[in-house]
């Protein structure tokens, strides 16, 4: 069985506790961003884009054995790093768990400022989109 959303969140919080300055934290995010597999141009459609003024995010989801797998890409690397974390937490989880996830780790790892409504393509709209996907699959299942 997979790790639960909560377990992964805790794991991430522990990882981030190791950083004592923003540079290390941001470099880690950048590395995560770089390591996220690219998605093909054909998957970058109008339907799965999260528009904003600053950077573009494409987010896809598939269902496999009643779990959801997320794929995403962005033209900005920091944004990609943030999605990579979200994917790590929410991918391979059940729709219901995704819908109910509180994602309290975000505040704990000091990415709260990313939650500001003003950070275009902030976490908020990505999380929203992920939950909408989950909702869609939940209704189909």
């Amino acid at each position: 069985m997979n790790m639960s959303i909560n377990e992964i969140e805790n794991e991430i919080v522990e990882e981030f506790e190791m950083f004592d300055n923003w540079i290390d934290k941001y470099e880690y995010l950048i590395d995560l961003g770089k390591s996220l597999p690219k998605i093909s141009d054909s998957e970058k459609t109008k339907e799965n884009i999260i528009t904003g003024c600053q950077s573009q995010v494409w987010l896809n989801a598939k269902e496999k054995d009643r779990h959801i797998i997320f794929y995403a890409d962005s033209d900005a690397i920091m944004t990609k790093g943030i999605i990579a974390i979200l994917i790590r937490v929410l991918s391979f989880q059940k729709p219901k768990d995704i819908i109910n996830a509180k994602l309290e780790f975000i505040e704990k790892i000091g990415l709260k400022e990313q939650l500001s409504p003003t950070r275009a393509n902030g976490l908020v709209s990505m999380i929203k989109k992920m939950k909408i996907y989950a909702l869609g699959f939940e209704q189909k299942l």
Partner: protein
Amino acid sequence: MSDNSDIRNMFPILKSRVNDNDLVYFDNAATTQKSKEVIKELERFYLQENSNIHRGVHHLSQVATDSFELTRKSVKTFINSKFTHEIIFTKGTTDSINLVASSLGRLLKKDDEIIISEMEHHSNIVPWQLCCEISGAKLKIVPINDSGELDMIIFNELLNSKTKIVAITHISNSLGTINPIKEIIKLSHENNAKVLIDGAQSAAHVSIDVQELDVDFYCFSAHKLYGPTGVGVLYGKEEILNQMPPYQGGGEMIKEVSLHKTTYASLPHKFEAGTPNIAGVVAFKKSIDLLENFGLKTIKEHEDALLSYATKELKKIEGLIIVGTSENKSGIISFNINGIHHYDLGVILDKMGIAIRTGHHCTQPVMRKFNIPGTARISFAYYNTFDEIDRCIKAINKAKDMLL
């Protein structure tokens, strides 16, 4: 609350001396005074957060945006709208009404009708006249009776299937009449007409629940709510705002601009083109906080008491005629004294430190209805006192002696 020195201390300007007298400020329907908190917040914003908002990734831009959006949430709660994005920030009531008249006006056709009333402020007349001029729609007028109340029978007769918009003031700024807007909204909706309520004189004086009222548009100005000048609110129902074409074009209100085609941003941004009055909107929150701390029920009770006391005292003055004598009034009293021109009265009261407004109060049709060139008008805010009324009455008597 007969000793409200605590409240008066919150408004430093009330301690002013004018022409060697303590100021009595009875011109609150024109604009209210500002609390220390509002003034301090303006200062704080410019000293700590000033930056342009939305779309900026740097720190100041983030905090400024958050502060700005916090006011939107406050306004949402204050008038209990369903969504935060139903709150559009404008320059003032006039701007809000023009936005609706222009944008909604573009959807009107030649035979459509708009209903306003005889007691409207020019800001709720002229935009509709301009709108009719452009669209060819017709303007219908609800007359008022001798007490300064809407003639609801004629209103009912005017309403018909051609009526597309009904634009009525909640409280008359020259007569003080509180209109039965709930009934107006209900009747209008039964006729499929949309209703805009001009709340310039009400938002600081009676409590507003736009969902309970089921009103389509509600407009008011921060400067009449103890808040800064240059800030207004347009509340509109999401569904209707979404259908309306944009009013002004510019930064913020677009989704994508090409040189030949533009798509528009979602609410509220679609109607907020250009850099708004950021500091003003941020500071406005402090005045909403103030109103909520006082409580609109308490405010209304105090102002009602001032109204009845002042009315009683004014009536003792021989030759004084109150214009606007509805049973259902807010803290606004217009009057004339036989043989005295309102201007003379205003000038002499001013010499005694008492600030009232004189003239037509931007409601010329009301003056025409009562066949007078204007009135002297006293209007109250929460910080006014019975003692100030006594001083004002004394001053009116003195002025009368001088002028007659």
